[in-house]
């Protein structure tokens, strides 16, 4: 199953097993990136951190990871 993270295609190997946002992040992002503060949108809709584990992805889903801007 192919999904997109910030526009980049990511192949998730086994499409017979439901893949959550949490699982996709573990597969696609290095640990130091996962440990950053960020907001996430799935196909343009915000998904809170508490829902990463129970939100199942489907083929061609698009995840956008948005980092906080902190300057001022």
């Amino acid at each position, binding site marked *: 199953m192919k999904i997109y993270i910030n526009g980049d295609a990511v192949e998730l190997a086994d499409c017979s097993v439901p893949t959550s946002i949490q699982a996709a992040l573990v597969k696609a992002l290095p640990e130091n990136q996962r440990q950053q*503060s960020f*907001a996430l949108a799935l196909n343009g809709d*915000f998904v*809170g951190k508490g829902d990463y584990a129970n939100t199942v992805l489907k083929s061609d889903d698009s995840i956008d990871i948005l980092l*906080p*801007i*902190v*300057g001022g």
Partner: protein
Amino acid sequence: MLSPQEQLRFSRQTMLKSIGEDGQQALKNAKVIIVGLGGLGNPASLYLNAAGIGTLYLVDGDTIDVSNLPRQVLFNDAQVSQGKADIAAEILNQQNSETNIEVLDEMLDEELADYYFPLVDVVLDCTDNITTRYLINQKCLEHKKPLVIGAATGFDGQYMFVEPNIADSACYQCLFPINKNAPENNCQTLGILGPVLAIVGGLQALQAMKFLTGNKVATNQLSIFDGFNNSWQQLSIKKQQHCPACGND
């Protein structure tokens, strides 16, 4: 009741149906705290002061650096090394001497927030680091104070309004949960153009004025500005029931 001089001075604001004399009186009665008198706090304080906000609390323990001058437009060469909050108060007093301005020339901490946030009607987050942003968010939740958040680096900006008195209003930590690696990049490390700060700081001032005059200000929305491509994007967000800052459990 506005004086004849105030009616004349603020006539272009009071002629707006959504402001009127009642709205102008509300601005005059209002107390606003601006945390950070850098690139965002400069334009935000200028516009709020000019608009007739009654009391402004200016919080910043930093001093003016020569590298601030291209974007922190209240300040000039002769003021380098002087306190930002002090100098901002001087300039703002020249702009509108009717405003009651209180200078807090130190960095915001818990104690300062606990003392001053209960005194104000709205809080502006114009800071440049995420630790203080989380602290302001937490203290606004604790003291039930509306929070107008602005941020900018490079060509990019973010804006969000948190209203703790609305039950389903998402907070900053619902959007950006605290994690192990806090972002450290700010204007010092990523660069910035002044007009980007003017746009975001101006937006913060506008939303504060709308709120103070009883107009609706949207919650649960992150506004994202791309100054390079001239575009705005809105991300609808939701309060998180498990949010450690504002959640119900």
